[in-house]
């Protein structure tokens, strides 16, 4: 080999080795940190340089029709929600998301939230507040107290500290309220505090309630147990429309404590994806020595599984936030939230729905319809047949006598600063002002158990109520998204491994 050829080969072999070591360094991320971001309004690099680069770690926004990328300007979000994928070379335990934005939103779209896909089976996102119009601008006449990121807003100044308020609320909440449910929360759990209803007023009865409709997919229910025994039963049916096996977990919680559960494996002989319904399987949970009180029933499964003839020894049973019924005959429900979001996934479910007597025509599948009800404690829903997914921020029940909602009202777009509220408790970082009227918000996520596919986390940006066909709902300009991931450094891992 001539010396020239030898030299040039050594040169490219070293170059290849450097590239390999660089990729390995990025994969290991020895510092335990990884930053990914995009400044949408930065001057774009020339197309030639652009073509030499790899792709960005922050993907393009999807669905593309919900956002407009301007030339050297911000990304304009026109509808809710939009998604980004964020590539990371390895998994990290914490993420700090910084968003610089300019909201042009109305009172019908007062909230911006961002988060990551936490569970890909239940399609659950862990969301945190980016901007809340009520907390930023809507409570100027209220007296506010702050303790770190925790804020208490009082219509009339009665407390000097949040501690005092929480102490009184824990012991005697009814003495503070001029109306029931006078405390609203935002991004804050009042775990360990009394529920937002008077349990003493509930009817004590040991009779069983049989839910007359078949319920499809994952659901959560609240129920009240007046005795010390729980008797739960139902029939599970696998529709076998999806390609995966469909296991079922039924869990009963008192607060955050699991008190009873059942796991049912999918042992059906039908082929997954064939659409052949499996035989119905009886499921039962019987548990004694429980304290009378409020319980939550978690029915965790895929959309393939239905539960029929759900029976519980309670008079109070309410589905939380969502209900999907699969019956052929007329259905009547009530809800305590003043609005209803409706979606059909199947053409057979298209129909006219009545909400407080108002007709909502469901004409398209996959489109989310929304309707508002009258001012009332609860609202009537009437359907000709099942198949529709009904959602709101309240609960759904068979009638007023079985309605039960222990959750505090949430300060969101449906509630707003309503006259019933005297106090608002929020865990919220106020947005920071930047140049050119931009705002920036910083969110902290624990990403250890978040879903990550092919090296990508799934980031959602949600502005509930923002729709393409409603120009009055506004839009959002995003100047920059920056995500800093943190995890264990290589040095920490080595020390751990050597037990130093």
């Amino acid at each position, binding site marked *: 080999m001539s010396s020239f*050829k030898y030299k040039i080969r050594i040169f*490219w072999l070293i170059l*290849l080795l450097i590239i390999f070591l660089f*990729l390995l360094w990025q994969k290991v991320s020895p510092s335990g940190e990884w930053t990914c971001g995009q400044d949408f309004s930065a001057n774009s690099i020339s197309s030639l340089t652009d*073509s*030499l680069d790899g792709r960005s770690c922050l993907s393009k926004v999807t669905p593309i029709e919900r956002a407009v990328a301007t030339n050297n300007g911000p990304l304009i979000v026109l509808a809710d929600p939009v998604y980004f994928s964020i590539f990371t*070379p390895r998994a990290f335990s914490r993420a700090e998301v910084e968003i610089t934005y300019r909201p042009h939103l109305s009172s019908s779209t007062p909230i911006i939230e961002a988060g990551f896909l936490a569970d890909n089976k239940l399609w659950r996102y862990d969301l945190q507040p980016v901007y809340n119009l009520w907390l930023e601008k809507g409570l100027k006449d209220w007296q506010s107290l702050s303790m770190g990121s925790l804020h208490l807003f009082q219509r009339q100044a009665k407390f000097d500290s949040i501690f005092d308020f929480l102490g009184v609320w824990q012991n005697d909440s009814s003495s503070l309220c001029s109306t029931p449910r006078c405390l609203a929360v935002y991004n804050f759990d009042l775990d360990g505090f009394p529920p937002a209803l008077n349990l003493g007023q509930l009817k004590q009865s040991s009779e069983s309630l049989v839910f007359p409709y078949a319920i499809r997919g994952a659901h959560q229910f609240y129920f009240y147990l007046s005795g010390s025994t729980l008797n739960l039963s139902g029939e599970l049916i696998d529709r076998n429309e999806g390609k995966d096996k469909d296991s079922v977990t039924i869990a009963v919680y008192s607060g955050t404590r699991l008190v009873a559960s059942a796991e049912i494996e999918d042992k059906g002989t039908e082929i997954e994806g064939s659409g052949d319904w499996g035989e119905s399987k009886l499921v039962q949970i019987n548990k004694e020595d429980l304290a009378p009180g409020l319980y939550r029933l978690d029915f965790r499964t895929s959309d393939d599984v239905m539960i029929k003839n759900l029976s519980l020894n309670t008079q109070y049973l309410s589905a939380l936030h969502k209900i999907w019924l699969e019956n052929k005959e007329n259905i009547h429900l009530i809800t305590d939230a003043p609005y209803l979001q409706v979606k059909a996934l199947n053409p057979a479910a298209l129909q006219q729905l009545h909400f407080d007597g108002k007709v909502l025509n469901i004409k398209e599948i996959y489109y989310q319809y929304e309707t508002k009800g009258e001012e009332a404690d609860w609202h009537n829903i009437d359907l000709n047949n099942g198949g529709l997914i009904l959602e709101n921020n309240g609960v759904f029940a068979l009638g007023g006598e079985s309605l039960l909602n222990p959750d505090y009202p949430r300060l969101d777009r449906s509630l707003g600063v309503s006259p019933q509220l005297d106090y608002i408790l929020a865990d919220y970082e106020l947005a920071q002002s930047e140049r050119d009227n931009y705002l920036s918000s910083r969110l902290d996520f624990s990403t250890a158990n978040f879903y990550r596919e092919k090296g990508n986390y799934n980031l959602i940006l949600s502005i509930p109520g923002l729709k393409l066909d409603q120009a009055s709902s506004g839009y959002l300009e995003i100047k920059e998204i920056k995500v800093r991931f943190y995890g264990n450094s290589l040095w920490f891992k080595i020390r751990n491994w050597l037990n130093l």
Partner: protein
Amino acid sequence: MKKGVIVKEFFYFLSALLLLAVLVELIFPGLFVLFFNLAFLTALWLISALLSLLYVRQ
């Protein structure tokens, strides 16, 4: 003579780089394409292949 060597070695280098790309993408999906434009590298590799064929003929 020197030009021919450079063209051939460039072709070998790009071939090795593309092999590395395939291996990295198989083991760690998304890592190589984050830093390198695979379509651009493949185009360069095709051009270098054509050029080296020309020089071999000469």
